[in-house]
């Protein structure tokens, strides 16, 4: 029974991982800007699925709400407002070969580091914390950073509104 569920969870993990990697490659190299945006949505939802796998269901909800709901919508609006009809600017820059080299090097270093250090991490069962515990933790130990983060978000949104507001000299 346990073997069976392990096999199923393994298969689900690889399914999600393949989905995420394929969608991320779609975001990185797609020629169609809407396709890239929808691939981003698929990748974000896949990561939310992995969060559920990792017993962090609150994070999965936050991921779906903020990334799936808000971020993709904002980016779709940005695509609409910037009128990307000319797909010429979707081509890669001239530095793309160097970017491939840099990313392959970074990936090799990361994987060597991960595999080299993984012996010190024994296989354990997943830790689980309830949403209640997380909320109590956030609003007691981390109350001031939490409020500061909300202040940062508010200031950034006000700054964004001020930045796109038409100034009187320019546009009238």
């Amino acid at each position: 029974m346990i073997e069976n569920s392990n096999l199923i969870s393994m298969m689900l993990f690889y399914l999600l991982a393949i989905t995420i990697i394929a969608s991320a490659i779609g975001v990185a190299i797609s020629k169609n800007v809407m396709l890239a945006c929808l691939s981003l949505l698929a990748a974000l939802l896949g990561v939310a699925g992995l969060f559920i796998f990792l017993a962090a269901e609150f994070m999965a909800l936050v991921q779906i709400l903020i990334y799936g709901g808000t971020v993709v919508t904002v980016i779709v609006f940005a695509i609409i407002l910037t009128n990307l009809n000319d797909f010429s600017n979707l081509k890669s820059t001239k530095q793309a070969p160097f970017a491939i080299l840099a990313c392959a090097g970074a990936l090799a270093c990361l994987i060597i580091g991960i595999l080299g250090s993984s012996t010190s991490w024994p296989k354990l069962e997943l830790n689980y914390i309830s949403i209640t515990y997380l909320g109590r933790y956030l609003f007691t130990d981390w109350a001031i950073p939490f409020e500061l983060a909300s202040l940062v978000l508010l200031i950034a949104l006000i700054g964004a509104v001020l930045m796109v507001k038409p100034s009187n000299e320019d546009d009238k």
Partner: protein
Amino acid sequence: MTGLVHYQILSAILFCIGLYGALSRKSAILILLSIEIMFNAVNLNLISLAAFSQFSQEQVALGQSIVVFVITIAAAELALGVAIILRIYKNKSSIDTDNLNLLKW
């Protein structure tokens, strides 16, 4: 059973794909998309480290709290980034990063 290593390698691959997109794209919006992929790789790494950590419950909550802050900062960054892109588009009628060489010496 999937272990910590699987998640870490997945997030390393995701990070490098996002890095490639951010380095090789011409359109500023697509650079923003790739940066979101990189944020997600970091979040996945943090959550998996928290879930597999051998420490107390508080450490798990710490990992998830950091992800809450990362998501907050990512949302602020995205709002400002889109605002900057719209402003650049209004001024130059293009968001091709090759044309944005005002500061080039």
